[in-house]
């Protein structure tokens, strides 16, 4: 979440500090503003949330400041919350996988486009969806997927189906919508990594008799692996914490972690349990990301 802000700040400090030939200690000081920002606006509230998660909910006083593990016990003892966490992880994993598979060829094409102007246009087109809010895009998906939406009207009109399909409010719908949200992030991340892979390596591969496809699989893919892992980590974290998409596309019956946290904190004012769910969600996102990154590193390096 903090990356855009801190990188902006990083650039600001770079600019004001003058040429890059200054001695090292000054450079170390350059991270201080960003560090302060992160500490004050990210770490401190995060610390509070962790603290709240050990409090106890009371219908009258709302929060009793104690130190209790009851909330965590409830999350881990109750199959319901494990199922929600499991479903969230499953959906996030699947969306990430599909996103990366779709993003890889697109990123490769953009990266290998010779005309600088065309490349810029392709990048702008890729980023364009990010300028629209997530909720707006989800609303558009609702129009597309509804019982009398575009897809059903078309299929019914063509006589391909007799009864409208229920697409909206299913896990499939959430995965489709999430993939559309995640694609730009994955494409941009992968494309910048592929830019750094010299074309001469591909030419070397081809001169040794590799087909174009084999060149991509044997030369580009391994070299792009760090970018692939980074893109997957970003997508996975975004998908795990998604809110608007599960609420609008998944409907009330598809219960995922993001909406559940909101419901506990905002709807029923149970801050301690909401904080616990938030901590569990954060910890599992971090853990799953680290585990899968480790696995991929071991496999490919």
């Amino acid at each position, binding site marked *: 979440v903090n990356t855009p802000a801190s990188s902006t700040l990083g650039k600001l400090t770079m*600019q004001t500090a003058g040429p890059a030939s200054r001695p090292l200690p000054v450079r170390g000081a350059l991270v201080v503003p960003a560090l302060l920002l992160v500490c004050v606006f990210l770490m401190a509230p995060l610390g509070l949330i962790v603290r709240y998660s050990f409090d106890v909910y009371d*219908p009258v006083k709302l929060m009793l400041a104690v130190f209790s593990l009851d909330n965590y016990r409830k999350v881990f003892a109750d199959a*319901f919350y494990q199922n929600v966490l499991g479903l969230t992880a499953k959906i996030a994993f699947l969306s990430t996988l599909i996103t990366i598979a779709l993003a890889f060829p697109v990123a490769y094409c953009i990266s290998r486009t010779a005309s600088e102007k065309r490349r810029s246009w392709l990048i702008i087109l890729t980023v364009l969806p990010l300028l629209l809010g997530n909720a707006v895009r989800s609303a558009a998906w609702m129009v597309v997927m509804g019982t*009398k939406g575009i897809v059903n009207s078309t299929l019914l009109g063509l006589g391909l189906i007799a009864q409208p399909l229920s697409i909206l409010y299913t896990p499939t719908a959430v995965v489709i919508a999430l993939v559309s949200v995640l694609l730009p992030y994955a494409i941009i991340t992968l494309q*910048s990594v592929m830019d*750094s892979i010299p074309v001469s390596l591909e030419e070397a591969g081809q001169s040794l008799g590799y087909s174009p496809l084999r060149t991509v699989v044997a030369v580009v893919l391994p070299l792009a692996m760090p970018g692939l892992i980074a893109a997957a980590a970003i997508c996975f974290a975004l998908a795990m914490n998604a809110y608007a998409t599960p609420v609008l596309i998944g409907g*009330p019956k598809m219960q995922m972690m993001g909406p559940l946290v909101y419901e506990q904190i*905002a*709807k029923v004012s149970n801050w301690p349990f909401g904080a616990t769910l938030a901590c569990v969600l954060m910890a599992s996102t971090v853990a799953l990301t680290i585990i899968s990154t480790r696995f991929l590193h071991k496999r490919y390096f």
Partner: protein
Amino acid sequence: MNSQWNFALPLRRREVLVGAAASAVLSLTGREASAQSSELVVSNWGGDWNDRTVRFIESPLVESKGIKIVRALNLEPERKTKLLAERNLPRGSIDVAHFSAGDAFELNEQGILEQLDLSKIPNYANVRPALRSPYFVPWVFGGVTLAYNPKFIKKPPTSFADLWNPEYAGKLGVLDQSFYNWIYMAALVSGGKMNQVDPGFAKLLEMKKTMKPRIYPTHQQMAAGFANEEIWIAANYSARIAQWAKDGVSVRSAYPKEGPVSIVFGATIPKKARNKDAAYQYLNALLDPKGLGSYSEASMYAPSIGNAVLSDAVRGAIDFTPEQTAALNSPDYGYQAKNISQWQEWWNKEFKA
């Protein structure tokens, strides 16, 4: 990775980014500062609800007197959470907060709401006695009645029990947003009471099993469900049903013999409000007989005051008769506040799952 490429970003883009961040910070603080004195910050629901509030009350009766209204539009969970979160700050960010009576009760229990000085709200004298409260200005009220599509259901339903009629299996709509109303309705048809809802839980599980209801997140989506004939029957606030019918949806409201479950909407002043004088003027304007009459005609909710200016035709359509008002099932807000967290959990785990 080629980090040099990143450093080579054109300077202009960096400046744009920095400039954008700086202006965002400025606009935030600037707004905070400007909301301090002569302005009145009103937190309300958005959409047509707010449009009508502006049209019939805020613009003609408040802003015309030189009070500038700053609107913070959101849903009530956010509004509640905001007030709870800023209760320990020296000054709050909201001067008038619109709420339902149940939300206001909860916040008052937390000591967040101003106890009203009724001498500053002369129009309060006309509020129906049953609706009065020391910390809440009741504005409009309504009740949950049955909604049905006359195209498919020829004989109008007469009881909440008709929501369990197997003939409508698969064609029943449930509203997730106001799950508590469904708990109340189930309690009323299974021998429970408004302050004793336990028998309703088994009844709802029966509904889930035999009726296979469609669950909608919001009012708008339920309206769409009626419009595209996914559902034939549901329950919702009679005012909402009347609005949908007015918008051309084939839906009608039917009065349940158990009596509707009531809802009261109104406004409060948080203790930490910055501009209480203007807030009192606003609350008095809400109860203006002509303004509230026009608001009621447009929203189809009944006015909280006895002397609202309504045409006879509209009065018949939206106002509750004294017998109907007496038959309203009003929630016991203390009981509700104590149990709502548990109910939500039950609803998530047992009914929706």
